[in-house]
């Protein structure tokens, strides 16, 4: 029973992957939900667990897209290595960006992540030979999952690809949940809560933040790679500021005290966005207002709302150690 409690959120995540096909008509849309859920998880690891507000997640997402695209197009690499490469490069770039950005704290750090996001956008724009510039990489193939020549899992149809992505998603969620429940995860919380104190008791803050960055970069890069295969394109827009912004908004709206909250946030953003955009092209304005509202009143996001509702019905959700009653800010 104790294991059940430990794994409850991973099981919930798995449940979501089973529910999505029932609720959502399009395989691509369902896959998009999971892909951005992964990206939001990467963002949440930095924000909710390490206290780092990053406007640069689009960098890793875009780089992941380009890496997988290039691996598939130029190297004719199979499915898994293409994705693994995206994770590796995503992690490497995160290490680089993180190393620069971490030299500053508080708001200065946040500004730097935004500046770096712009930098990588222009970098991708100029390196036309690699990235296709404005056009992006086109006709990115989507190989089946095969081992030694035998097809293990077809990915041709949208729902077939969805099942592959679902497996990857649950696996990554489980791994991330283990990370946040581990000593490393707990130590990251200490960094989030009070950097100075964490250093004073002996922790290398820079190393810890970089570790969080690297993991985040890997997960976000993976999401980018999956995205490129889903759409068949690795576009410039994946590395653009607005992708960073969207990932951040999903994470914040979902709530930062819990990994599963990111799944909620991404689902909300992608599904509501998909629906609203048909009604009103300027639906992002509502999202802007929602962000304002969350900043003022709903700090714990959708997950917090869900918790409050559960409590009203007498269910007392087991407290997650990352849950904060008062988010302690970092000093600038």
């Amino acid at each position, binding site marked *: 029973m104790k294991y059940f409690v430990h794994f409850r959120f991973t099981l919930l995540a798995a449940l979501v992957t089973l529910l999505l096909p029932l609720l959502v008509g399009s395989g691509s849309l369902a896959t998009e939900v999971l892909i951005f859920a992964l990206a939001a998880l990467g963002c949440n690891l930095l924000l909710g667990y390490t206290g780092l507000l990053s406007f640069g997640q689009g960098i890793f997402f875009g780089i992941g897209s380009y890496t997988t695209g290039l691996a598939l197009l130029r190297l004719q690499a199979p499915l898994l290595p293409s994705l693994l490469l995206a994770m590796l490069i995503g992690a490497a770039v995160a290490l680089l960006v993180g190393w620069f950005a971490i030299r500053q704290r508080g708001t200065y750090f946040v500004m730097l992540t935004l500046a770096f996001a712009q930098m990588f956008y222009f970098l991708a724009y100029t390196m036309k030979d690699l990235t296709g510039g404005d056009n992006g990489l086109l006709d990115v193939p989507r190989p089946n999952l095969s081992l030694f020549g035998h097809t293990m899992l077809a990915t041709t149809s949208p729902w077939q690809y969805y099942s592959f992505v679902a497996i990857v998603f649950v696996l990554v969620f489980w791994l991330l949940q283990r990370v946040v429940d581990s*000593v490393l995860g707990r130590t990251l919380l200490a960094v989030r809560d009070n950097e100075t104190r*964490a250093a004073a008791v*002996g922790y290398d803050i820079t190393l810890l933040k970089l570790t969080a960055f690297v993991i985040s970069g890997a997960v976000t890069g993976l999401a980018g790679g999956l995205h490129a295969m889903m759409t068949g394109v690795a576009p410039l827009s994946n590395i653009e500021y607005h992708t960073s912004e969207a990932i951040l908004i999903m994470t914040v709206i979902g709530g930062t005290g819990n990994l599963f909250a990111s799944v909620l946030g991404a689902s909300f953003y992608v599904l509501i966005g998909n629906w609203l955009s048909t009604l009103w092209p300027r639906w992002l304005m509502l999202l802007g207002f929602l962000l304002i509202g969350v900043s003022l009143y709903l700090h714990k996001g959708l997950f917090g709302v869900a918790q409050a509702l559960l409590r009203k019905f007498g269910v007392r959700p087991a407290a997650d150690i990352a849950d904060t009653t008062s988010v302690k800010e970092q000093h600038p």
Partner: protein
Amino acid sequence: MSKPTPILSARHVSKRYGKFTAVNDISLDILPGTVHSVIGPNGAGKTTLFHTLTGSTAISAGSILVEGEEVAHLPGYKRVRKGLARSFQITSLFPNLSVRENLRLAAQGTRPLQALNPWRRPERLRAACDSAEQLLVRLNLQAVAERLAAELSHGQQRRLEVGMAMAGQPKVIFLDEPTSGMGIDDIGDMKRLIHSLRDTTTVLLIEHNMDIVMDISDQITVMQQGQILAQGKPAEIRSDERVRRAYLGSMITGGKA
């Protein structure tokens, strides 16, 4: 009989902020197993001295030796492994984590590489967990072990603050105004706690409460405007004319003879 080797030595330590010298050429020897208090009026540079010794701030000049080993070039977090630990003047805890978790993290800090493990659950690292349990008893915080640090009373928080410094079983513990803002009852508890520290650790103490300082100290260093005004045993300090003048007399006449 030869002079015992100091466990901590500050040699010509200075800290400058631009043109302003907060700590000016301070040399100190701290003997092991003693309680060494640093007192002085506000702005004397006591906390800054602590910052430089523990590594919270980089030193401008001088050298710091822990058991003969130079540590001045080490950043603060590395000095923890050399046996230094501190509490802060303004309470600095992990507000959203439980009291037990605060202590566990502090205990784990002496083996920070273990803390990078992304797989093992914290409960499995028994050494740190056990330290935390023992500390809870010693600090008399068992009743609130599961409460978030932010929810504690001020007195409890100050105790936890000291506990965070004790957690790593340091060689030298720096306590910066541990009783600040505390009520009479809490002060008594704190005094007993500091007393109990003498058996296992060397204590450096910044305090304004002269009752405690005179009672508990083996050595007192009086600072003024970044420099050492006087140094010696409590009785000597109490009768020192310069110190009286610096403190306007009344403050240091408290405490037992």
